[in-house]
């Protein structure tokens, strides 16, 4: 019989309990340890890696890692080149590039999984594996989590449970289709007519994977593919071969804008009935296989009953700028579940919180906030006046948090009678909406024309002034002209 006592983090009382051992859980625990927060990590899985133990089905990630860069893998600047490693503190270098065979500049699923296993090992992130979170109770001073190993009491919970539960919209006859997660090896679709419902990442990923096998392929969903936005979208162009074949008039591949009315069983095969959106009219597709690439939701179990409000068609918990449930204080969300913190959506831009590159920073911001609520003050280095402009320019030129979480995270410096302090990385929305000491926030922003430019916000007497700086073709914001501009904007503040 397994010796439960030999596993780490036995049931009991902790300040924080982290649920999940994917990248969000590992990053959160690593940061909590760094700040000395007493916490437990539990996971229903039996090894680290989370969703990367299974997905993506066609085995290739979409975000890049450049194994070689002008800066070392143990530097903060390197994080900008590597969107897949967790952020190691205390000298731990980026690990994703170590495992890449360089066939592509994006890792395979297996390479990504291996790098996460290595992170848990080298950062010494302990996890109580095989411990399933089963129920949640609100207590006067926090929460109780009922698990398969017993009860955990804590002030705060960080759920890093992924967004991996199949989500299916209300479609009549959906039971005649299989969800993306049930996709079989591509050979199983040889000489079959396949309809894929959904034209986002997973739809195109499967479509691209089945092109050499299927006899006919239809991708269908109400929303058109927005060609102008594609280069700026996380939907990578290399998945778009089905789309290219269709728009160039290739045979057997169709990418159609239509709302699905029903899926019916007709003589052993399926019929998908749809109503055109971009071009009105009824459409019917006969298919041997129908795949619902309709996305995922977070496995929230009983959290909705506890009062957790959700967003994006009930898929993800709605969150504050610090990734706390908007409606149940004390419950936090890390990993790609943190996409429920929507930020200001300035110019309609969402943060990169559905991928490791963005949510690794969300986890650190979350953990610093939780530590402060537990009475652990964050480090605020004191700055001299002449250090402020160089710091701002350096951040605008190379801060990975700002460049990856555009329009969302900012670097803040406060100025008061007590001195000038570096407040570190702060959610931009929090900076703009909470008021406080006079301060400056630096952010990288993308506008509606997808132009990237640095922006500096100056807060004086609780009034905010926004200063958009001109874009630079190679993002060199540490030059003389930018220094002059930022100096001028900060003159009254400093």
């Amino acid at each position, binding site marked *: 019989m397994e010796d439960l006592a030999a596993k780490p983090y036995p049931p009991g009382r902790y300040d924080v309990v982290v649920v999940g051992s994917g990248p969000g859980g590992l990053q959160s625990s690593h940061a909590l340890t760094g700040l000395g927060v007493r916490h437990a990590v539990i996971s229903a899985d039996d090894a680290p890696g989370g969703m990367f133990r299974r997905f993506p089905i066609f085995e290739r990630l979409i975000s890049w890692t450049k194994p070689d860069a002008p800066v070392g893998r143990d530097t903060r600047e390197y994080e900008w080149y590597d969107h897949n490693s967790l952020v190691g503190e205390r000298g731990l270098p980026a690990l994703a590039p170590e495992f890449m065979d360089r066939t592509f500049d994006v890792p395979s699923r297996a390479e990504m999984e291996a790098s996460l296993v290595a992170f848990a090992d080298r950062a010494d992130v302990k996890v109580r594996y095989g411990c399933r979170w089963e129920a949640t109770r609100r207590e006067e001073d926090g929460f109780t989590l009922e698990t398969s190993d017993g009860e955990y009491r804590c002030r705060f919970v960080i759920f890093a449970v992924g967004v991996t539960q199949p989500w299916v919209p209300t479609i009549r006859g959906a039971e005649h289709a299989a969800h993306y997660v049930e996709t079989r090896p591509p050979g199983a679709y040889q000489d079959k007519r396949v309809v894929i419902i959904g034209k986002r990442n997973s739809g195109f990923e499967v479509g691209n994977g089945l092109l050499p096998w299927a006899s006919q392929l239809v991708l269908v969903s109400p*929303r058109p593919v927005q060609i102008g936005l594609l280069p700026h979208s996380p939907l990578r162009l290399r998945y778009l071969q089905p789309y290219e074949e269709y728009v160039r008039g290739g045979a057997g591949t169709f990418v159609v804008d239509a709302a699905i009315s029903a899926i019916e069983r007709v003589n052993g095969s399926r019929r998908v009935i749809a109503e055109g959106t971009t071009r009105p009219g009824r459409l019917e597709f006969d298919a041997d296989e129908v795949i619902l690439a309709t996305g995922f939701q977070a496995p929230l179990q009983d959290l909705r009953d506890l009062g957790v409000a959700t967003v*994006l068609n009930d898929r993800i918990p709605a969150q504050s700028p610090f990734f706390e449930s908007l409606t149940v204080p004390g419950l936090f969300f890390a990993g790609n579940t943190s996409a429920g913190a*929507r930020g200001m959506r300035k110019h309609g831009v969402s943060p990169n919180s559905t991928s490791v590159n963005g949510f690794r920073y969300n986890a650190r911001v979350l953990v610093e906030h939780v530590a402060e609520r537990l009475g652990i003050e964050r480090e605020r280095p004191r700055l001299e006046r002449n250090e402020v402009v160089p710091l701002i320019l350096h951040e605008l030129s190379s801060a990975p948090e700002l460049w990856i979480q555009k329009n969302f995270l900012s670097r803040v410096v406060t100025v008061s009678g007590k001195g000038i302090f570096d407040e570190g990385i702060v959610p931009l929305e929090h900076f703009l909406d909470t008021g406080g000491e006079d301060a400056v926030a630096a952010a990288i922003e993308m506008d509606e024309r997808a132009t990237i430019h640095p922006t500096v916000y100056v807060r004086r007497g609780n009034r*905010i*002034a926004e200063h958009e700086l001109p874009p630079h073709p190679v993002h060199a914001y540490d030059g003389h002209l930018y220094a002059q501009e930022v100096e001028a904007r900060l003159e009254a503040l400093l």
Partner: protein
Amino acid sequence: MGESKDIAERLAGLALFADLTPTQVEAIAHRFEEEVFAEGQRILRTGLTGAGLFVIVEGQAVIRIDGTERARFGPGEVFGEIGVLTGEPPNADVEAATILRCLEIPHAEVQPFLIEFPHVMYRMLQAEARRLRITTEWKT
């Protein structure tokens, strides 16, 4: 909270979209994203660029100028349209007065959206005319 799982269903219940077919409403629900705000959370900020247009699906929003409440909007009503249509940053703050669900149409997509759905544009104009009348009556 009366949370329905299907946003298309909730949009279909709003007067703003009453002239559209179910397919058109579904297309809109897929094209734009739903946003949720906690009570007191800010949605539009005076003087800051980059805001879009919001259609309230559930809850109430309060409009403040220099901290003073000037109006409240509820389900089916639109805010942010003046900033988007004039190309100027908002001249008021808008905050959630309750938990608030909105459909957000980013600035750059407002014009193609309204041209594609003239019935929605007409209903927006009607609402705008009503607001203008109230403001005019209040001023005279």
